């Protein structure tokens, strides 16, 4: 049979020499390696106090954006769910009632919007499909949990806070060409890109 590795050694029962019987050189050799590691740079990162540097285009979980007046942009058109190759997105649409204009941008909105983060492959096709600039991937990572059901993220986790200081900025993730393309007058519904381009 062919040998699996070249590092195999044949065990021999020869008598040890005096130096070998002292064991000291072997112990010192071992301690040298151990001590050497004391002075090396630590590889452990104390998450969550300390974070590894993220790529600016890291694809973490989604955000549902609000417009400049704090109304939800999503209109439950279903294109993200259609584009999703993992079929992770489901939604239920509802009609906006009079007086809710400050809550929802369009006549129709998503009353339920769920993304199953266990199914999601973070490909970003939903972001590409969205005609309303409502869904974006962010650099936030999906946290671990004990139950599968807790990975189905609803609107409570996905919609960004209405408070202007707590908004989630996604403009840095867009390339300059995207920003320029989307700030054309034809996409006037969208001030997100124009602002980011000016900044």
């Amino acid at each position, binding site marked *: 049979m062919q040998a699996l590795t070249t590092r195999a050694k044949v065990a021999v029962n020869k008598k040890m020499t005096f130096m070998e019987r002292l064991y000291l050189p072997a112990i010192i050799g071992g301690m040298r390696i151990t001590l050497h590691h004391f002075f090396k740079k630590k590889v452990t990162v104390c998450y969550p106090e300390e974070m590894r540097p993220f790529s600016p285009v890291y694809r973490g979980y989604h955000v549902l954006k609000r417009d400049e007046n704090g109304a939800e942009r999503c209109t439950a*058109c*279903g294109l993200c769910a259609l584009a999703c190759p993992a079929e992770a997105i489901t939604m239920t*649409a*509802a009609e906006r009632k009079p007086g809710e204009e400050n809550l929802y941008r369009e006549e*129709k909105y998503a009353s339920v919007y769920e993304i199953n983060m266990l199914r999601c492959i973070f490909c970003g096709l939903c972001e590409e499909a969205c005609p309303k600039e409502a869904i974006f991937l962010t650099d936030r990572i999906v946290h671990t949990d004990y139950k599968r059901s807790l990975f189905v993220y609803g609107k409570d986790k996905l919609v960004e806070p209405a408070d202007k200081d707590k908004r989630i900025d996604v403009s840095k993730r867009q390339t300059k060409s995207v920003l320029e393309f989307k700030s054309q*007058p*034809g996409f006037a519904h969208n001030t997100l890109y124009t602002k980011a381009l000016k900044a």
Partner: protein
Amino acid sequence: MAKVTIDGIEIEVPDGTTILNAARMIGGKVVPPAMCYYSKLKKTGGYCRTCLVKVAQGSAKDPRPMPKLVVSCSTAVQDGMVVQNITSPEVLEARRGVVEFLLINHPLDCPICDQAGECKLQDLGYEHGLEKTRYEFSRRKFNMIDIGDKIKLHMTRCILCYRCVRVAEQLTDKRVHGVMNRGDVAEISTYINNVIENDFSGNVIDVCPVGALTDKTFRFKSRVWFAKPMDAHRDCKKCSGKAVLWMKEDEVLRVSARRDKNEEVEEFICNECRFEKKKKEDWVIEKPTHISRHSVISQNHYETIKPLKLGVGSQPPKPLLNNENNR
């Protein structure tokens, strides 16, 4: 009989046939799009101008070309006529202009509209139109009108094809008129309210090429491409009872009439079938409806589902789909 050549394809049709119907007999890509003409209704056609074609040779007797593009839905063929549709750049250019005009006042709210996915104007805009609008002025706006408790009229989206007016006129009685005012301010008037008592008034939803008339019982329930259309029938005293159920699992979201290959209603169905029979038990389900695989509705839509038999003995596993789905 008259011999007519459409885009190089020769066909013999009875005298008096329109160019559009002759092209439909050939089928395929040479059929001009039609937003207002409806073969099942009388007096339709001539409004939308999307079916414009070029007549390169008038007839065998008088081979001069017609001076302008003609509307194929209301121009009769003559023996020896030569028609150009998709082979003429002039026609395509004109059609692009027509689409742009149709879209001037049509809101670009497809993400909201229930018709999206089965909208003829959406298809037309996608095939012939520009990628984006050049129009910078405000579009005309109307308040939404409820025609009865089952039909919603979203006049903003209307392209004034008059199809619903013809339905009201020809399928229902006691109707006064359909369109008020002229030109830019024309609108489907609420006189059409008079059709709501009639059993066939729901058909205005099916004939509407855009999302101006929509089913209130289906409003915002689901996008059409997430619902699974199934051919079904039931015993109905008023109509043929043949319909398409748009289902989500065991739930019937919407009932609509069956459509033929020209996307026109085969048999008009009554309001009872359309609006009231929303249970699976009310219907006998025949088979999944055939959906062209170029349509977004064909997404995850299988027409024959055979349980996968893993190779028994020496038999290889059978494919899940037969070739019919690849049409």
